[in-house]
Structures are given as C-alpha cells and as structure tokens.
C-alpha cells in the first residue's frame, strides 16, 4: 500500500518544469460556456424529438394519497401518459441492491401511496410539448389523508437523539473546567434551513436502444447516478449509459439522483421515444435536498490571558425520517483551537420536512457561524484582539486526536490577512464609526475545512498525432475540473496544454467519485496524474525499445518529457513522431489513486481567515457589505484563476448565509414559505462589494502525490461569522440568529436606543 512518504518524491507536477501548474490558464470549456454551446442535460439533442415530462408534487407533509383523478389530464391535448403510484411501471423496492457493489440503492419514483414530505412527487405527466405537459399536470387532482407531521424544528428538540453510530466526544473534564473558568461564554446560535438554488434545475433526457438506456442528466456523481438508475429499474448497470458533461451548479444538492432521472428513463421505455424532464424552480425547493437548520450551543471557558480551558460545541439539527443525514456542525471545532477540557457532539431530530442533505461545506458552513462568533464575544470580554485570542489558542498538535498536522498555516492566514485588509483600522469599541446614516464595522473569522482523498481511476490515451486525451467518470460542476485535469495531464507528460483533451462525465469512463466535499481536484487529479505517469512509462519503454527511435537502447531513467518532445539528453523526437511510427493505433493506459495507509496519522485540513467590513443603516437596519478579504492555505494551487473563483464564490455564499438566505418553514403546512428565486434571496451582484482573496504558498506532501488540496468549500467556512462580527463591531448589537435581516438588526438597534 502507498505511504505518504512515497508522495514526497519529486515528480513532474511538483517540479512543474513546464510551468503549467499554478498558472491561471483560461477555463478549458470556457469558450463553450461563453457562447452558450456547452450542452447541459436539458439542451442535449436526442436521436429523435423528445416528449416532455412534468412532475406533480404533494401538498401535505405526511400521509397517504387516497385517490388521484387523472381523467382530465389523460384527456388533455398531447398527453401521452399519466402515472401515479397506481400505474407507474414496476421498480425495485426502495433501498434494495441487486448488485451489492452498487454505490446507490433503488430509489423508486411514485413508489407507493405514502407521502413523506411536502413536494414529493405523486404523479407524472408526459405530453408532446412542454406547454401541454405543464397544463395537463395542473389537471391531475390528488386527494390525501393527512397524518400528524413533525415540521417545527424549534418545537421538537425533545425528540432529539444521538445520530446513528455516534457518541459525544468528551476530553478531560469539560463541566468541571467550565465551572472553574474565570471568563466564560455560553451562547446559542441558530442557522436556518438553506437551499442550494443551483442555477440549473435538475433535468434529465433519456432514450433507449434495445435494452440499453442513455441518460444525459445533471448529477455530481456519475457512478451514483448510474447505479441508482440501474438498481431502480432492476437492470444491469452496464445497460445504463449516464452522461453529465456540463452541470449548472451542484453545491452538494446534485450529489444524488432525483425523480427526473428515474421517470424520464421509465417513460422513454414505455413510450419508445426520448423523454426529458426538468424540475421547475419551485419544485427544486421541496423536491431536492436542503441544508438543515442547526441550533448550536457554544460554551467557552478561558483564563484571563485568553487560554481556553473549557470548550464545548453542541449542535442540534434535523433530517427526514426516511433519509438519515446529520449536519455535523460541531466536527470542525474538534481540530481548531487548543483546550484541555472538551465536549463536542450532535443531536438529530427526525422530522417530516423535505430531505436534508449536504450543501457546500456541510458541517463547517453552519457550524463555524457559532464558534467564530463566540470567539469574537470572548475576545471582547477578555479585552483581546480576536486574532490575538486565536493565536493564543493555536494548537501544536491536533487538539483532539493528538496527531501532528500535515501542515497548518492558520496563523499566517490571519496575520497576512490583517495586514492586507487593514485590520488596524478597526476600532475595537463597537458602534464608533459612522459614514452618514451608516454605522461601519469590521469583523474577522477563521476558516477550517477538512481535506479528503478518495479512490479514483483515470484513463489517458495518446494518439498518432500526439494528442493526449484524458478520460474519467468525473464531473465539473463549475469547479474547474476540466481545466485542472488538462493542466495536470499536460505537466505530467510534458506537453503543451493545447495537446490535451479532457473528456469527463461519462459512466463508460474509468470511475472517479465525482464532485463533493472539496475532494474533487485532489482525488480525480491524483488519478489523472497516476495515469499520466503510467503513460510516461509506456512511452519511455516504447522509445527505448524501438530501433527506429533516436532514444533506442537509452537508459530509461534519463528520459525526459518536455514541450511534446521525448528525449535522452540530445537524442530526441516528438511524441507525435514516436507514437505515429511505433504505435499508430495510439496508446491507452489507466492509473489509479487510493488513500495512503498512513494518511490518517496526520490531521489534515485547509485553513483560512476572513475579514469583512460592513455598513449598517441606522435608520432601517439594512446591512451592506463594504469590503471583504480572505487569505487561504489549501495546498499547491493548480490554477490561480479557477481556484480564486472557487474561493471567492464560497466567501460570497458566506455573505448570503449571514445576510439573506433562509427557507422559512410554515409549520401549519409543513412547507417552505418561500419557494422561488424572488423570495429565496441568494446574493445578487450589488450585494458583493470589493471582495477579494489570496492563497498562501503551500504544498501538503501528506495529501496526495501533487500536494494539492480542495478549495471548493473552504471559502464559505467562517465567512458568515466574519460578517456577523462586523455587524457587532459596527453597532454593538450582537445577533446570533442567521440571517441578519433588517427586522432583526433594527430590533437590536432600537433595543440599544438607536
């Protein structure tokens, strides 16, 4: 098995002789995207014109469908089928796996008369046109027998239990130390339900050729989607060809398949023609997963000098009864600050709301909103600068496991950020700075997000023209995967970027786990690197073994690859010449990566520090961003441009988290009050003022052969807390209930007599 020691050896990527690694090259598929010619799932041209499917969704949170009147819909113009649980074709029972190695189990659509959440699919209409399908869907009349439903999270804490296979983590004697601490904080913070609101609603187009189905869908995990469809339809996964080449945003919400995938495939089979299905924007809110609400109690005990003696983060969250998921909002705190006496844990309420699931930085995103404000509150109580407080609690080893850090530059992120942001301009006394009607303040927060490496494969092929094609069952959800795979492949094989093609998002290709958990670049990229190294070896053998090659008989260990040329000192030829002559059919090899046996001997994370300046309108309570800057340490950066886009995108999610984003539940109906983009307020351009970020130089040789780490989720971790702390610094009003909308801020201002 691999050891992290093997990864410390120099290699083409870490040596970066071609200079391709780290360079801010343009997005590989950028020209397609800026011209509208990148085909997303619903844009895909099928072999023949598709019929259009539209979902009908439940309007109760829990109960049973007692009857469905489909007569009017069936008689409507252009309608080709109307399905309910009574007549949908047979599917494998939920949760079953015919193939034990399937990554996902069967998940039938319209599988029974049970309604488990508001917005669950209860009927499905297919018609010749979208206009006819949408109108017919409105004609389906569903009657329900509603049952009592648990939908009010704040009123259901008495039902909270430990999440499955989980215990609280106690280290030392938290309660004793907290009771004895001279300075304490004991506060509760609330992060509400949030929604991914990917710009592209979930969509699939499906068609059959014989027993094989082709689906173009919008999903972050290729194998997961392929296996779920195969298991649900009870067919071999080899009969499912799933493609997901361009994805209009995922953020975790498309990590799993939805009913568009299943029903388009079933309907295409039944109708013997292609069928495409898209969720409406409104259906996305209930019909796909959301980030659950989290109630977080933070207790900190400190010495007057700021050293933490007692540390507790306890998070209570919720999930759907039928889909267990825990938002691990306390996990991050186990690795962040030193304190000898610790208590961390989670409680879970099972509810009858739509499914909770992962959303960008699950755990950290809501979790850091609590502790990073509590640290600000503690700093003020101690009369310390918030950065100084954090530095005084900087651990030498992982505070919970005692393991060494692979690398940890949190303090540098904070000090570098403070200097570049102008933290010295901050008045530590809140409510002192005015700009007309605006009260101005600054806040900061730390960021931490775990780093992961999963098993993955990749295939790489060189053709007779010297063009290299990387193929991988990987996805690019806007993260820059296409681009960094091209860069890794080019650098590994010493060829110009223009000689590399990248083909991903196809279940026929060597599997990778997909996009999620900010593991994509490291995981898929490392497999691509290994495949590239294998191709180097194959090309070396080919050259030194080919009597017609100038390299013939040369020592393999002296072979170099540079600018498309293979050489041993002054004996050289182009790769195109070599392959064209000696392997005219091209060469294809695969490579794979898996976690090192000793990787878990290190505490491995990405880090950062956020700095924010906000204005708070003293008349209205409106909060507006004035400036935000982040400094991050996330291993070797593959592409300066796309990595920065990822990290600033995450920061902006933090702004939304702090100020505008919430799916309010109406407990009378078990549904979200807001279910469109006019009322679920993702930040708009005007919300984001003077926001920038930078990366520290870093390479983490315990992470993978390239020393890279993820950047997709780090940016949101802690960002909202920096905003909240800035609101406090501006006004002296400490809010602990996100998002910090004008009504809450104004109430705080008025309570202070402002």
């Amino acid at each position, binding site marked *: 098995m691999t050891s992290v020691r093997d990864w410390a050896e120099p290699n083409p990527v870490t040596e970066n002789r071609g200079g391709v690694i780290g360079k*801010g090259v343009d*997005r590989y*598929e*950028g*020209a*397609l*995207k*800026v*011209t*509208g*010619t*990148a*085909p*997303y799932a*619903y*844009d895909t041209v099928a072999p023949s014109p598709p019929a259009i499917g539209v979902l009908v969704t439940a309007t109760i949170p829990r109960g049973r469908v007692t009857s469905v009147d489909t007569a009017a819909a069936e008689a409507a113009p252009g309608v080709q089928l109307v399905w309910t649980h009574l007549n949908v074709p047979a599917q494998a029972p939920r949760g079953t796996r015919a193939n034990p190695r399937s990554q996902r189990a069967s998940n039938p659509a319209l599988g029974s008369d049970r309604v488990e959440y508001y917005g669950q699919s209860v009927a499905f209409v297919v018609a010749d*046109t*979208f*206009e*006819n399908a949408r*109108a017919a869907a409105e004609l389906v009349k569903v009657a329900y027998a509603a049952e009592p439903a648990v939908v009010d999270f704040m009123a259901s804490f008495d039902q909270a239990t430990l999440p499955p296979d989980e215990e609280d983590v106690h280290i030392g004697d938290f309660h004793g130390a907290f009771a004895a601490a001279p300075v304490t904080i004991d506060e509760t913070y609330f992060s509400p339900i949030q929604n*991914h*609101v*990917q*710009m*592209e*609603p979930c969509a699939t187009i499906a068609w059959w050729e014989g027993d094989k189905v082709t689906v173009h869908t919008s999903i972050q995990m290729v194998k997961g989607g392929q296996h779920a469809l195969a298991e649900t339809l009870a067919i071999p996964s080899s009969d499912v060809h799933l493609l997901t080449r*361009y*994805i*209009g*945003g*995922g*953020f975790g919400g498309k990590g799993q398949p939805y009913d568009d995938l299943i029903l388009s495939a079933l309907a295409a089979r039944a109708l013997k023609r292609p069928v495409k299905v*898209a969720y*409406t*924007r409104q259906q996305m809110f209930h019909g796909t997963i959301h980030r659950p609400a989290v109630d977080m109690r933070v207790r900190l005990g400190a010495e007057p000098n700021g050293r933490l003696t007692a540390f507790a983060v306890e998070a209570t969250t919720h999930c759907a009864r039928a889909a267990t998921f825990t938002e691990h909002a306390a996990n991050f705190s186990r690795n962040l600050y030193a304190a000898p006496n610790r208590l961390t844990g989670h409680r879970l309420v099972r509810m009858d709301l739509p499914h909770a699931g992962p959303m960008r930085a699950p755990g950290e995103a809501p979790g850091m909103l609590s502790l990073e404000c509590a640290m600000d509150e503690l700093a003020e109580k101690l009369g310390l600068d918030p950065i100084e407080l954090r530095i005084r609690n900087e651990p030498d080893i992982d505070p919970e496991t005692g393991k060494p850090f692979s690398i940890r530059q949190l303090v540098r992120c904070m000090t570098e950020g403070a200097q570049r942001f102008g933290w010295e301009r901050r008045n530590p006394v809140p409510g002192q700075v005015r700009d007309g009607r605006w009260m101005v303040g600054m806040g900061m927060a730390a960021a931490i997000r775990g780093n992961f490496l999963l098993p993955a494969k990749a295939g790489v092929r060189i053709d007779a023209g010297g063009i290299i094609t990387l193929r991988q069952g990987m996805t690019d959800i*806007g*993260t*820059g995967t296409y681009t960094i795979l091209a860069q890794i492949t080019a650098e590994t094989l010493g060829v110009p970027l223009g000689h590399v093609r990248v083909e991903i998002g196809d279940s026929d290709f060597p599997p990778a786990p997909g996009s999620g958990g900010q593991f994509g670049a490291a995981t898929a990229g490392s497999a691509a690197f290994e495949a590239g190294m294998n191709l180097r070896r194959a090309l070396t053998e080919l050259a030194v073994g080919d009597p017609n090659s100038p390299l013939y008989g040369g020592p393999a260990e002296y072979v170099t690859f540079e600018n498309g040329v293979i050489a041993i000192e002054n004996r050289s030829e182009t790769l195109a010449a070599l392959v064209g002559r000696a392997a005219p059919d091209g060469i294809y090899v695969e490579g794979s990566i898996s976690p090192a046996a000793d990787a878990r001997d290190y505490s491995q994370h990405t880090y950062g520090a956020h700095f924010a300046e906000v204005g708070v309108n003293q008349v209205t309570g409106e909060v507006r961003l004035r400036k935000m800057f982040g400094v991050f340490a996330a291993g070797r950066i593959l592409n300066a*441009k796309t990595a*920065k*886009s*990822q990290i*600033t*995108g*995450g*920061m*902006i999610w933090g702004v939304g988290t702090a100020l505008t984003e919430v799916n309010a539940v109406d407990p009378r109906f078990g549904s979200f009050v807001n279910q*469109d*983009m*006019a009322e679920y307020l*993702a*930040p*708009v*351009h*005007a919300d*984001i*003022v003077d*926001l*920038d970020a930078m990366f520290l130089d870093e390479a983490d040789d315990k992470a993978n052969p390239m020393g890279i780490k993820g950047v997709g989720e780090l940016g949101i971790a802690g960002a909202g807390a920096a905003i909240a702390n800035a609101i406090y610094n501006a006004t002296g009003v400490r809010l602990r209930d996100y998002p910090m909308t004008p009504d809450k801020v104004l109430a705080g201002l008025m309570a202070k007599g402002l």
Partner: protein
Amino acid sequence: MRTTITVNGTARTLDVDPRTTLLDALREHLGLTGSKKGCDHGQCGACTVLVNGVRINSCLSILAMHDGDQVTTIEGLGQPGALHPVQQAFLERDALQCGYCTPGQICSTVGMLQEAADGWASKETADLSAPTALTDAEIRERMSGNICRCSAYPQILAAIRDLAGEVA
C-alpha cells in the same frame, strides 16, 4: 399561431402554441439552447436575450408578442474561435464557473453597456442629470438582474470593467 422573428440575423417563421414563451421557442423550436431556463419567472436572468437591441427576460414573453422583432441570443454574439469582446472578457477574467447563467450575463452586459452609453441612470446614479459613468457600483447595480449562484461576481465585474471603456 404563426410568428415571424429575426433571430441572429435570420428570419424564422414558427407556427406554435400561443403559450410558447420566447425562451422556449428559441430553445425547443429553433435549437438555440444557449439561453437558459433557471427559474422561468424573471427571477434569475439566465434567459436574458436582446430584442431590438434591448435586454429582456425571454421567459416572461410569449413568442407571439415578438412578431417582426429582431432577437439576438448568445449564439448570435459570437462562436468559439470568434468570440464577441464581452465573451472574450468573460473567458479571460474567469467570469463564469458552472456556466449556466453565463449566456444571460453576457447578453445582459451587452444590453447594459448600450443603456449606459445612452445615458440611462441607475439606482446608484447620484446625480440624475449628470452623464453616466460606469463606476463599479453602477456596474454591480445594473447587473443585479442576473444571479450567479456560483457567485462569480468579482470576476464578472472585472470583465465588464475591462469593457466599459471600449464598448460604451
């Protein structure tokens, strides 16, 4: 019903259900899938196209309203290898991530720059009678009808800043 529109310079006659939106006509009947459906209710801007040079949400129009109109979609601005300056600026500044809102952002930028050139004011304009200066705040406000959930806003701003001088 029959409607004739000129799309990207070519006259096209369609005989479609009156319920067909301009967006769906472009996408489903003319194969121009560059314009995207993000919300179908004018709440996101992904469907933005230019009608007679003016940016609108094509999802909140039915085709029939546009008989005789000139429609420009993202496909009509430029193609890979022959990018429009706005497309080129977006590419160079990495003003996109997933790319789904991008065609709308770019069409909106083209329309917005013309509005600014015509001297139109915005919410951010301090003096309503002064000539329009495309400050960062002006660009941000004028582009707020195009939501980018990947949040490429700083990069979009940089791209438009590059253009504001030369196009406006």
